[in-house]
């Protein structure tokens, strides 16, 4: 059967926490000081703006949060443009955060799929879950941010869940 899981605030918070925890730092140096401290600080500010857009999208819906999304994408693009030889590294870091967000969001939401259903006094237990919501993450930062924003703004996850009992499958 097809079901929609409505994402809770907890799902969003946990996914954001997982993404925020990913903090790579440039260690390829023998210097005592932190190198590129300014750029890393900006990267975190950019993530703040993406996070704000995701929160706003979840709370108010995609339409109301569109300008926050556009602003976040513009900030990300500007950072990448100014990062010089570190551009790839920063783009990867943001993409990694987005992927962690998606993973955290889905995993958290899946926890609320009912383990069993009781119909006519018989218990059907979960046997298979398929995420029917298509989500393609590419190398494009703008596209990824937009896709993830749409996921958070929709606030629900579409799943196909199979339940069965003693060889009987419930449609």
């Amino acid at each position: 059967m097809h079901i929609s899981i409505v994402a809770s605030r907890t799902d969003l918070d946990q996914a954001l926490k997982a993404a925020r925890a990913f903090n790579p730092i440039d260690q390829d140096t023998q210097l005592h000081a932190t190198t590129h401290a300014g750029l890393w600080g900006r990267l975190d500010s950019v993530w703040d703006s993406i996070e704000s857009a995701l929160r706003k999208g979840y709370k108010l819906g995609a339409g109301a949060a569109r300008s926050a999304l556009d602003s976040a994408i513009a900030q990300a693009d500007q950072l990448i443009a100014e990062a010089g030889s570190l551009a790839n590294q920063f783009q990867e870091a943001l993409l990694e955060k987005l992927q962690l967000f998606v993973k955290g969001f889905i995993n958290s939401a899946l926890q609320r799929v009912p383990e069993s259903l009781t119909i006519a006094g018989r218990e059907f237990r979960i046997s298979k879950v398929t995420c029917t919501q298509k989500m393609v993450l590419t190398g494009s930062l703008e596209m990824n941010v937009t896709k993830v924003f749409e996921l958070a703004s929709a606030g629900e996850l579409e799943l196909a869940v199979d339940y069965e009992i003693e060889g009987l499958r419930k449609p």
Partner: protein
Amino acid sequence: MFGELTADPELDKEWQSPVAAAINNLWDRGLASQAEEKKISIAEAHRLDQIETDALIAAAIRKQGENHLRTYMTRSRHKYLAGYMTVRSLVSQWRKTLAAPLRGDQAFRVLLHMTRFGDFGAFPDFGLPVKEFEKEVIERHVEWIRSMANVSRSDLEEMLKQDQTPRDERKPVRWVNGSLDTSGVEEDWQVVKKLADQCLSSLVGERANVERVPEADEICQAVMAAVAEGLTGKTNESRLFQPGVAQEVYSRLVILPLAQTASAFWLCEKDRTVVCVICSREQDSDSGTPSYDLLTYPLDDEDFLALKAKVQEGGPRRMTTTRVIDLLDYQDRYVGANFIVFQHEDWTYIQPRGVLFGLSNVEESLHDTILSRLSPSPMIQDLEALNNESHPCVQRTISWIENNDWTNVDSEQGWGVDIDAWAQRVHKLGKQVLSVNLPDVEKTSRALLRFVYGDSELAKTIETDGFQALADADPPMLQDFLQALLATATTPVNDTQFESMNQTITQIMGPLFELTNNGWDVVSPKALERKES
């Protein structure tokens, strides 16, 4: 870090911070040629140049400060957070002591001076057993910071007055027992000898508690006790580390080498000039390709012929080129002054750089100090080789332990003893020295945070997660907090917006700011409050 983010050179046009001076001099341009070009005096050219460079540095601080602070307080917080908040708390305390909104650049002068020209109060006895030493080193450090926080108003005012005193009237001042000593007292190198003597008395007699190796059995303990007893009869006084040697070793450290390269060079006989090609960057951040500078400089006959003779004798085909900064600001020496040192075996030519570019004269004592830094005597070379960052002595000890059997060591009495527990203990300590030793950094951070925030939940939260709770509550809140932190570093803040933001921050984390007579500021050390109460 406080200086980097706060010592905005535009805040005081009469004083140039050492940081600004060092940065300013990384850019080579001659004041004499500027003056000639603009038909103004060299003094005027210097004034205009300083205005221009101060504006550039100030703009960089304003543009990048917030981003830098964010990285230091989040990604690199294990290294920087506790120290930075301690410094901020000290500055807040000084503002209270002075009953005035001491600016960030002024506070930086005092902080830098206290760090450079203090006594050895923060140093524990170097001969203490390891456990006691570990404990004492943190306690002494915190006590030293406490003495900084308790500095009197008159000492702070006297310190700030020093910068307005004409250079030729300034006296060397230093901090002794938490007070400013203005009697012109010179560096006491005898103290260094005392520290060296303490090192030699480590693990001697009663200082060598056999309980320090919990796994040691009675036989092993007996051997340890016998060794400690045997060392008691020795004279535990340093013969090498006498005051004269200490002065020779440490005085040269006021020269800071920035970069070094081997460069190809050519001699132009006709013009008596040397032409050098320097690889100034291995990799440009944008293009990824190296970049080169072509340096040409004239020599007087004597220098030129000496170098020519070296080349004709078949000396190296490249010369060592080093850029250095002078960190001394006294009499004819100016902090931040840059020089490029060209060395070909024992031939040396030092060229002023930065704003002094184009001048040829290098003051004699400076010349000697630079040489001592870059081409030290064999004794200093030995000391540096033995004490460098890869810790060769520790590595040798580890290797010695690993390559021998300590379970049956010949007692030279016809029987063997098992002292493996002792050997493994030393091995473990050696490994600890070679590691980054994060637990020690964490212990120190904990002590500093307790000094600032007391023994509170807030101190524990910051120690564990930094200011992450602010970002968890609302991402822009962390950025707002960092902006407030940066703003109050320059001067206490007076505005209603700050008040409402502070309320939210306090609800989420606890009291990070307080309202003082000068305005909103970072909380002053709770450790002082406790002592007073």
